């Protein structure tokens, strides 16, 4: 058990370093899409919500899980779509407008 936790900690800490490396290179100009896009990625919790919602254990548990799936889906779908909407606006002179 402690081994499992330790392994998870390793993954967590290493992923944070990867995150720092990758995200430090994002220019200030793209900080808003970075926030909304990374935010959509944090909607990954949908994966946990889906398992819980499919389990059908008690009505309380399922009820909470459906709300969790809905919340996470808003996060994921809304986040990726709105990020795409923003990013398609970033154009350099000469590039096609729209």
């Amino acid at each position, binding site marked *: *058990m402690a081994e499992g*936790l330790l392994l998870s900690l390793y*993954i*967590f*800490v290493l*992923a*944070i370093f*990867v*995150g720092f490396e*990758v*995200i430090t*290179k994002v*220019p200030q*100009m*793209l900080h*808003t*899409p*970075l*926030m909304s896009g*990374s*935010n*959509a*990625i*944090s*909607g*990954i*919790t*949908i*994966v*946990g919500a*889906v*398992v*819980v*919602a*499919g*389990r059908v254990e*008690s009505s309380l*548990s399922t009820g909470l*899980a*459906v*709300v969790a*799936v*809905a*919340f*996470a*889906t*808003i*996060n994921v*779908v*809304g986040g*990726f*779509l*709105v990020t*795409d909407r*923003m990013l398609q*606006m*970033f*154009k350099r002179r*000469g590039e096609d*407008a729209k």
Partner: protein
Amino acid sequence: MNDVARSGALAFAPLIIEIAYLVAAVLFIIGLKRLSSPATARSGNVMGATGMLVAVLATLLHWDIVSWWWIVAGIAIGGTIGVVMARTVKMTGMPQMVALLNGFGGGASALVAGDEYIRFAAGSIDAPMNVQATIMLSVLIGALTFSGSLVAFGKLQELITGRAVTYPGQKVVNGLIFGGTFLLAAYLVAADANMPLYLTLSVAALVIGVLFVMPIGGADMPVVISLLNSFSGIAASMTGFVLGNNVLIIAGALVGASGIILTKIMCDAMNRSLTNVLFGAFGSNVTAIGDTAGADGRSVRDITAEDASILLAYARSVVFVPGYGMAVSQAQHQVRELADLLQSRGVEVKYAIHPVAGRMPGHMNVLLAEANVSYDQLIEMEQINPEFDRTDVAVVIGANDVVNPAARHDTASPIYGMPILDVDRAKTAIVMKRSMNPGFAGIENELFFADNTRMLFGDAKKSLTALVQHVKAGV
């Protein structure tokens, strides 16, 4: 699914799911990496979305899932809301949108962890202490992200006051609530399952979220949103610890790191520590000052749109400096129109973007991109500042504290040390402003009283429209 098929799928499901999660994690990382340039950013976002789709589809194979109905229901509801929100939100409303999305992510993480606790309390699973500890962390961070984001949304949408809300003894009260909640969480980890106490903890976390954001004023929102962004990631990571799910841990950690970096950049851009932003209650009071006279009797010089248009039309170089005021009056399209007109006359036009201009990181860039401003004209503070010496006219549109020269030399000023755009070094600065009310920080702005500054009073959109007309007609 019949029994044979099910047992067949079961044998391979764990492996397929784990591999799919690995693919998803890789797609997230490459997707974020591609966000480092506007040219590749859009495809990066698509990669992130693909990773998410892969992860969700693989999860449907999970052996615990016996019915897909509730899953489909949840996805249908959330998906519809998500699509409508993403399609209808105005670019000026983006800070609110991001705040809401943060909240939903945090809320979902808290609910999933909560569900594990319900199972633990019902005796259907065994939860050793380390799992219980991560459940508590997940609920605490997730729930406070949820309620804190809703408050931030309310402030940005102006449903509640954007000013810092404070009362005497606030820090003591908050401190007691924080401390009490922490002790409660620690007790719950050590004790047997206790549903009522667990619910108390959840409610306390929600209250903390509200108390945490209420004392923070509107102009500090870039920091708050970045921090909540980070929290929503960390909450997802904690839920990953609870479920022993690596893709949650990785994705959550990436977002957590991203939010922390943005938070740091925002704090540095204001030369304030995170503690000061969170607990300093900046902008809770505004000192009222006279109409056009400064506190020590200095006066400002105003300018008509017609005169301003002549200055602009015959300038060699013009730098636009947008601030939150441009977002409020939704004047980005008029700015672009004026800029185009000037460019067609051979004027060199640039935009100077302060990192904390607006209500979230990168706010101004998105608005100007919406107005079809070429992104190579959007210049960051470090690059543009040396150019102000050679600039004929700097046009400040609804920015205030980020162009206050007092930050450079007045050690008594609350914003002393904050990096600013050196607008005062331009030959002439035209400041568009609705009135002489001080900016968010409640500080008088020296720039307005400088000899080379001209004030163009009125709504930014109307002033810009007038400028466009005069430039067209006058020459």
